[in-house]
C-alpha cells in the first residue's frame, strides 16, 4: 500500500488528478461512502486555491495516526503570495479571486481538522485531516 502520494499542482487539470489520487488513498485507508466524496471535494477546493492564488504548488496525501485515531492527512502547499488576512480568508463568501469564497471555509467544514500556516510573500500551507469513524 502506497502511504504517501505527492501530486504537483501546476494547472487546473491537476485538480482532477489530486482528488482522484486522494479518493484512491482514502479508499485504501478504509474510508467509504460519503466520506470519500467529502475528502475528494475538500481536496478539490484546496487544490483550486493553489491554482487561483499561487499558480503552482503541491498536494501531499498520507496516512495519519494520532492518539489512537487513524485517518488521512492532506497538505496543500504553495510558494505563492500568502494570505494577508487569514481570518478574512476563512470567512464564508469572502473571495479575492473569482470564486464563490467558499473554498477554504468549505474545506474546513468537510474535514475533521484544518490548519493554515501562511506568511505574506512566503506561501501557504493548509493541513487537513479526516479520521476514520
Amino acid at each position, binding site marked *: 500500500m502506497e502511504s504517501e502520494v505527492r501530486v504537483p499542482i501546476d494547472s487546473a487539470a491537476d485538480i482532477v488528478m489530486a482528488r482522484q489520487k486522494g479518493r484512491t488513498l482514502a479508499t485504501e485507508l478504509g474510508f467509504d461512502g460519503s466520506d470519500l*466524496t467529502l475528502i475528494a471535494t475538500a481536496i478539490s*477546493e484546496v487544490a*483550486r486555491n493553489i491554482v487561483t492564488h499561487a499558480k503552482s504548488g503541491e498536494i501531499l496525501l498520507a496516512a495519519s495516526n494520532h492518539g489512537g485515531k487513524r485517518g488521512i492527512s492532506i497538505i496543500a502547499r504553495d510558494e505563492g503570495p500568502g494570505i494577508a488576512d487569514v481570518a478574512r480568508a476563512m470567512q464564508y463568501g469572502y473571495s479575492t479571486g473569482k470564486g464563490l469564497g467558499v473554498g477554504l471555509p468549505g474545506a474546513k467544514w468537510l474535514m475533521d481538522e484544518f490548519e493554515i500556516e501562511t506568511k505574506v510573500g512566503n506561501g501557504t500551507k493548509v493541513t487537513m485531516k479526516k479520521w476514520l469513524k
Partner: protein
Amino acid sequence: MHVPILKQGDCLIASVQSVLSDADLLQLRDDLADRVGQFRSRGVIIDVTVLDVIDSFATRTLRAVAHMLKLRGAETVIVGIQPDVAFAMVQLGLTLEGVGTALDLEEGLAYLDRLSKKNLKHGK
C-alpha cells in the same frame, strides 16, 4: 473530456461521460450556449450522474450555464446529482438556487415538459 450534446425534440441533452476539468466545464457552457441558438432549443438537460465531485467551481459554472441559457430562452435542469455529492454540496453550503434539478433523465424530461405546458397555458 468533451461532453456530447444530443438533440431530442426541442430539448438538448448534455450527458457528462466522465469527470470534468474546469476547462471541460467551461467548454460545455460555451457549447450549450451555441447549440441552444442553433437548434432553437427550449430546454436543456445536463446529466451529471457520473460526477463524483461537484465543488464550488462546478456549482458556480452550472449555475452560470443555467442563467445564461435562460437569457437565451431555454430552461435548464440538472439531473443525476448523487446522494453523496448532494451531501458534500450541502456541507460546503453550495446551492443551485434558481436552477431546475431532477432525479434522473426521465424526471428531467418530465420537468421540462411540465414547464413548457405551463408556459403554453400562460401564453408565453
